[in-house]
């Protein structure tokens, strides 16, 4: 991740005995942060995501309307009694969007973590051990990659009654293959580098090599993929809820859209508001992911 400048490698010997430079370069993490924040769209994405998080965490209690209660005339437009209108049975859309965001974000985040953990584990073992382990694990991964993921998730959720847990599980199970392949590629690349051999020669065991020596170096692309996976997990959750496969006891953005789909032409606000919420969230996460990618990419770093 930090290719050294060839110039510094051929310093004349007298430069070696010179005292270290007074201005110590920043810690790479801080440097990455700086580049990230200097990137306008990435910073915008971060602000947007923080705003969405704030709204879903504190919004419901600040707004104070029960999202499951009939509060007004059904299908009344925005501004006519309620800020964002009401749905087909007179529930407040704004309250629904605020509360629904919680579940959507939790499902998105938890299933993304699951996806990444499974992906890293499978990829790490395949890339590190190679040979038969690699072949077996990659066949297994391909199996999950070729299955139509929405269909598989639907089947899983239908078999095990739809609940938050099964939905998270379903999304995690269908999404990890891509992360696994990425991790495997990185492990194969880094596993052949000299410093891994050096660590092995210094007595490091397999587990240590995998997770303390190789994994840190392979994190950049995995972090970027994680951001994208989080975005797609949220879309997935919305998709399942829309199809009525969500947890019926949990209000989510997808569920609001799904329940109001019959009134789509008569009351646009019922689907547009939660739709825009999903759109903005995924957009914010994608922008952040792009920003991280640029910040971790040495070529982008030179440009900055």
């Amino acid at each position, binding site marked *: 991740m930090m290719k050294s400048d060839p110039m510094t490698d051929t310093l004349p010997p007298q430069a070696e005995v010179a005292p270290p430079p007074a201005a110590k370069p920043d810690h790479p993490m801080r440097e990455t942060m700086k580049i990230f924040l200097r990137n306008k769209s990435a910073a915008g994405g971060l602000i947007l995501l923080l705003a969405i998080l704030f709204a879903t965490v504190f919004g419901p209690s600040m707004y104070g309307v029960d999202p499951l209660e009939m509060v007004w005339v059904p299908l009344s437009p925005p501004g006519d009694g309620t800020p964002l209108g009401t749905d087909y049975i007179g529930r407040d859309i704004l309250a629904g969007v605020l509360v629904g965001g919680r579940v959507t974000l939790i499902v998105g985040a938890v299933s993304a973590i699951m996806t990444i953990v499974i992906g890293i584990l499978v990829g790490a073992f395949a890339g590190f051990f190679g040979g038969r382990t690699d072949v077996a694990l990659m066949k297994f991964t391909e199996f999950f990659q070729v299955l139509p993921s929405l269909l598989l998730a639907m089947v899983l959720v239908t078999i095990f009654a739809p609940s938050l847990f099964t939905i998270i599980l379903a999304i995690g199970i269908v999404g990890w293959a891509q992360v696994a392949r990425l991790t495997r590629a990185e492990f194969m690349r880094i596993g052949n580098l000299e*410093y891994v051999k050096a660590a092995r*020669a210094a007595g490091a065991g397999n587990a240590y090599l995998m997770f303390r020596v190789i994994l840190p170096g392979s994190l950049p692309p995995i972090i970027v993929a994680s951001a994208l996976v989080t975005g797609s997990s949220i879309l997935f959750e919305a998709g399942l809820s829309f199809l009525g496969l969500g947890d019926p006891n949990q209000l989510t953005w997808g569920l609001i859209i799904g329940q109001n789909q019959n009134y789509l032409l008569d009351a646009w606000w019922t689907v547009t508001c939660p739709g825009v919420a999903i759109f903005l969230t995924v957009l914010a996460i994608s922008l952040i992911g792009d920003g991280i990618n640029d910040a971790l990419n040495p070529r982008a770093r030179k440009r900055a």
Partner: protein
Amino acid sequence: MTAQPFLEIRNLTVELPTDSGPIKVLDDISLAIRRGTTMGVVGESGCGKSMTALAIMRLLPPGFKITSGQILLDGEDITDVPDARMRELRGNEISMIFQEPMTSLNPVFTVGEQIAEAVRQHQGLDTGKAEQRAIEMLKAVQIPGAEARLNSYPHEFSGGMRQRVMIAMALACQPRLIIADEPTTALDVTVQAQIFALMRELQQETGTAIMLITHDLGAVAEMADDVAVFYAGWRIESGPAAEILRRPSHPYTSGLMSCTPRLRLGASAAEGGAALREIAGMVPQLGKMPVGCRFAPRCTRADGYCRTNVPKDVIVGPQHTAMCWKAEEEALA
């Protein structure tokens, strides 16, 4: 001089199974390194020097197998100890310095973390003490401003300094044998001299044995007490460095020596400065070895007998052996 060797390799053979039968990458290698001394291992690329090092570390690439022989580390045969014991030995008893200082350090951790980690893992020191030890080691390898440099990342160091860090890491756990696989090949000549001086100094302090793998006879002359010359998987000559460099017995060794440039001011062909010679031909490909002496096709002295009969390792001087029919004739004469 005649103390029991710390590392003794006896008749080591390493094979690589291929479709057309196993290939002997190392064929019946024997050598011994005494405590506190340096063994120079010389030879062209691909003649088995690094393979020997990897065999000692038990880090041979996949497929390569030790098929016979023993590697005795302080009397313990490490060719068949369990992996767990081997991991204990690596870093603690034997450590290795690699050829490429540019890529031998992990780019994502500071050098301090890397040295401290090695010490923590092997000697069970706590974080504070391990850091203290890391500073000591950086000072020992003469890195200026050791305390401040502890938090530097490898890319902030030059090649020579990185190799010093590598040496610091290798020495951190006070191993009794260091295998240095061409430690200065990637470095400037001036830095090379510094690194060698440093290694010698540290050797005197710690009494560690060094196996110095190189193709640079100058380095051997400077560093080594003993020399082993490798050719095509054979150890063709071995003995005290002074003896071998003065009176090489094997034509390959003398060939290697005449390939080494000697700098003389104003020397030209007219004034008697000889043009640099080369050994004609190439190291035979593994698996396509000549029947007799493996060096015969390139040897100026080889005759029909050499080409059909495998030479034996014969004593040609005090502790000096060579695998050559001609050397044997001379020794007997």
